[in-house]
């Protein structure tokens, strides 16, 4: 198969030799990208390689488009502009304007249009420049995409992937900083994932595109430029991460931190700090998948540690943290040695000024302090 694919132009990008894209002007790292994103291409002797989340998402889409003619990308600035956050960079050059389509800035309209295309049998990737703007299309996501299969008695599937950055960004104030995980995570008929690392990003997005149901992929703008190691398996074009399986990013015995998206990174830093300061071993669970949620992983971990702290960046009321606390109480109440707790975003429309903004979202230090209180050290 690999030999066959060599003749496809896309095989060049898909193949493991990372430096190759340098030949493609469209893929050359530009000065406008954070320097960290330019570290791609580094390959260690073990075959593990560094890749940014942005490139992992790009690779996921490119591979799926290569493998399935029905897959196309539509969204604002995805084609000629190369993506507002450069996630779709180079796709227009590779796949042409039939499959990489710049849409007007009309979320409700193009959200609905991509849903219609999915009902008619295509597999659209609908990119929202951010999920804040997807609010204009949330009716289409929920009422037209998520519910149609059930309402039709199972005769009308809707294979669509909605993706884009979600949650906190830096210095963009209230209308561009909201976390919608809880909103989408509450809808039966949808599947919702929130990748943290590059492997997450690639594996979950590929699984989302292949999944016959509507899937919402909640990325995070601040993660796009970060590099993570990609295993050899993850570099292959058949790499997918199954939904509903959380990943234990760091094992521990004293406290379970259940978290997602960018807060995974913060929680990992906090866990190291907890160890350093207090000798506390926190187990960090990266949920990866919000719907379905890996309740079993949470239950098993809390049975071991007896303590649960949820860390997320959404508004606190009726949020992901509340849900995880509720599930913890329902399933493992008797194993708890301390009340379950949560660190969330503040109940405040995100302010612009930097120091105020910092107060509106979880920070590593806050996680450390609150975790220490939960553990009682």
């Amino acid at each position: 198969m690999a030999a066959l694919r060599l003749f496809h132009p896309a095989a060049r990008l898909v193949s493991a030799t990372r430096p190759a894209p340098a030949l493609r002007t469209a893929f050359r790292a530009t000065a406008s990208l954070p320097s960290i994103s330019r570290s791609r291409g580094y390959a260690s002797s073990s075959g593990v390689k560094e890749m940014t989340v942005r490139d992992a998402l790009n690779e996921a889409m490119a591979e799926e488009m290569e493998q399935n003619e029905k897959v196309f990308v539509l969204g604002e600035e995805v084609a000629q502009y190369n993506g507002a956050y450069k996630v779709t960079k180079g796709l227009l050059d590779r796949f042409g304007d039939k499959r990489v389509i710049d849409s007007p800035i009309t979320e409700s309209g193009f959200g609905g249009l991509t849903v219609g295309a999915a009902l008619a049998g295509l597999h659209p990737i609908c990119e929202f420049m951010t999920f804040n703007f997807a609010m204009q299309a949330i009716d289409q996501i929920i009422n037209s995409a998520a519910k149609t299969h059930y309402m039709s008695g199972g005769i009308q599937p809707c294979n669509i992937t909605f993706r884009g950055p979600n949650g906190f960004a830096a210095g963009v104030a209230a209308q561009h900083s909201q976390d919608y995980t809880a909103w989408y995570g509450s809808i039966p008929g949808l599947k919702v994932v929130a990748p943290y690392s590059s492997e997450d990003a690639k594996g979950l997005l590929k699984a989302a595109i292949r999944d016959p149901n509507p899937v919402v992929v909640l990325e995070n703008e601040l993660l796009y430029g970060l590099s993570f190691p990609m295993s050899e398996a993850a570099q292959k074009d058949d790499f997918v991460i199954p939904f509903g399986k959380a990943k234990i990013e760091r094992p521990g015995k004293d406290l379970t931190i259940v978290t997602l998206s960018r807060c995974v990174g913060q929680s990992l830093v906090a866990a190291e700090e907890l160890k350093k300061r207090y000798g506390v071993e926190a187990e960090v669970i990266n949920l990866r998948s919000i719907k379905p949620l890996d309740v079993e992983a949470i239950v098993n971990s809390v049975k071991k540690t007896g303590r649960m702290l949820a860390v997320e960046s959404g508004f606190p009321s009726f949020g992901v943290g509340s849900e995880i606390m509720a599930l913890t109480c329902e399933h493992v109440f008797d194993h708890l040695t301390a009340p379950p707790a949560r660190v969330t975003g503040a109940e405040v429309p995100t302010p612009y000024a930097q120091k105020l903004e910092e107060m509106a979202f979880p920070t590593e230090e806050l996680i450390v302090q609150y975790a220490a209180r939960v553990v009682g050290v």
Partner: protein
Amino acid sequence: MLSRTIRRSIAAPIRRNAFVPAAARPAFRCVTTDAASSYADKEAVPKEDDKPFEVRLSDESFETYELDPPSYTLNTTKGELKQMYYDMVAVRRMEMAADRLYKEKKIRGFCHLSTGQEAVAVGIEHAIDKQDHLITAYRCHGFALMRGGTVKSIIGELLGRREGIAYGKGGSMHMFAPGFYGGNGIVGAQVPVGAGIAFANKYEDKKNVTLALYGDGASNQGQVFEAFNMAKLWDLPIIFGCENNKYGMGTAANRAAALTDYYKRGQYIPGLKINGMDVLAVKAAVQYGKQWCAEGKGPLVYEYVTYRYGGHSMSDPGTTYRTREEIQRMRSTNDPIAGLKQKLLDWGVTSEEELKAMDKEARANVDAEVAEAEKMAPPDPVAKVLYEDIYVRGSEPAFLRGRIPEENFYYDQVDLGGEQKPVART
């Protein structure tokens, strides 16, 4: 006045290549809602049911916007005319059955009937193929029937039966069939979805047309204009169709819309206003639009002028915002079924006796299917039925939560069977 300005400003570039001598065009008049305005030469009507002959439509059948009108002559056959008549009678009979069942409290929730609007669903179906696509709003029973649903499955759905068209999961507003995408309950949302279906057709180089229908109320929705924009931008093969029944729920069109010429509201999209009470005019228009789309000319905006005899839904008597006289006048003088009936008799297509026999047959068939539907069992109130088809079979999560944890539904513990055999698709 606004419409005149728009018209003038964009008229020149579009019309340049489409100039037709004024004399060849019918004098400009308002579209009639006379259901019996077509003409055929009785002498020219053939004996055989399947031999084509020509019907001339009234020159008040259409009004155009930046568009040459469809041909005012329509080739049809006696067989087709009789089928159209039968179909309209069947749709009406089915809606009347729904009315009765609702009043007997056997139908729950909302129930929007299309009595009076039959010519739109029937005329469209007679102009398109099964491979074409149609999506509409919640007043969908007639379309579901025409697209291949059975009376039994539609009434069964209204009654919430397991053998209903959506297995009792959708109800009145959500019915699906091959080439029929519902049955959508959110006003206006089906219009961009329809544009997406047309997008898929174009993407796959298919020549099929998509019809996206909405009411006069929905035509004021922002997303309708978003769909217009993308459809024109990408030349999507779609006919947007406003079923103008004069009232968006209880609000008269002119109380909700700044411009009630719905066929002009595509602005940069050619439009056509159609006598939606004349099934022949509807067929001629849609046939023309299908051809237009197949030629890659992009979208059209149609307005089917029609009238709903009943209220918005069953809970609306339909008389607080319009007069009984108005309803009575439309019923007695503009009825699509009575109109076609008169023409069939005038043209000698059929006899009074044959028509009566057809009426009887349609009623008997519908009534028999309704009776069967009433005998069908409701879905078993068990978790297996409740939780099936939320996700595509085989791709479900491990479990979904019930009202309490003990009610959680684990997919691996129940055999849902393979793919559900679609009732509507047989």
